[in-house]
């Protein structure tokens, strides 16, 4: 004689309901917990990338007097990224000279600055006739919770910093 309940008996049976509810809610809670940790680490990584971009723009602006020097230091910064980028990975760095003439911003090859974020930063920092350096840094936050979250939860961090040549005013 079979002891398997009929579908109606199964539906009416309340035993084990709490365990099933807990199993359902535990998954959601676990993902929420991971998301909170992920946000905290991403905020920290964003702060770090912003800080590094700011420091690098200031260091490059104070060190270089030529476009080739700026580009060389940007390459050097990328090559050595694994030594200083600790909360993020997949580093990209670009650096370019920019000058302000008649209220307009130009790169070292004479083209008008087109990137809106870089333009806004440079407009705020550079005075008429100033020459400065724009450093754009981007990376992806290192996530120990990646396995618990959907792949779309990882996003790229971008930071743009401008420093006036030979001045000590970095702006993130």
């Amino acid at each position: 004689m079979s002891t398997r309940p009929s579908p109606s008996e199964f539906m009416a049976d309340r035993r084990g309901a709490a365990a099933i509810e807990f199993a359902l809610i535990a998954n959601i809670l676990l993902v929420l917990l991971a998301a909170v940790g992920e946000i905290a680490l991403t905020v920290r990584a964003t702060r770090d990338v912003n800080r590094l971009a700011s420091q690098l723009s200031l260091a490059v602006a104070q060190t270089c007097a030529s476009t080739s020097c700026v580009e060389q230091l940007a390459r050097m910064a990328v090559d050595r990224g694994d030594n200083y980028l600790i909360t993020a990975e997949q580093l990209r760095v670009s650096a370019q000279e920019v000058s302000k003439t008649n209220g307009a911003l130009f790169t070292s090859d004479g083209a008008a600055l087109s990137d809106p974020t870089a333009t806004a930063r440079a407009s705020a920092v550079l005075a008429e006739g100033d020459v400065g350096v724009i450093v754009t840094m981007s990376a992806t936050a290192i996530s120990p919770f990646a396995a618990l979250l959907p792949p779309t939860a990882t996003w790229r961090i971008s930071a743009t910093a401008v420093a006036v040549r030979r001045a000590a005013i970095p702006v993130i």
Partner: protein
Amino acid sequence: MPIAAPISRLIRSTSGAVAIETAAILAPLFLILLGSLQFSLYVIECERLGTTVYELSSSRQAELTDRSQNEVAATLCQQIALVEECPHTIRVQLAPLLSYPSIGTQVDENIFDPGSAGTIMLLRTEAAMISFIPGVGRLPIRATAIYMRS
């Protein structure tokens, strides 16, 4: 069979079920609570170390150029609380950015070169934070800063 009846009664009895369920769920909940606390403290310690390293490289550069490696380590240890025997265990490396290899390396406490004026420098620190979660070892906290030595 004399033993079958008590076991059968034990399985069917529901008295004390709440206590058993509570005991079963309490351990993982307590672990999650401890984990959250540990994670918060870890983020705070990272933040403190990172801020101190940033300040040293920007507004307090003289402390890097005029002081010894041990003194810099002691300065950093004043800001972080959860590193055992901190001045001895924290690792500090200071060298021109150009002298670092193009592959990632561990912080080498044997290198402390304040560089010369006009050099782009890289300061790196690493310490091991204590953990109070069973089975989890010490947690590494790290901070870096790039600056031009004035």
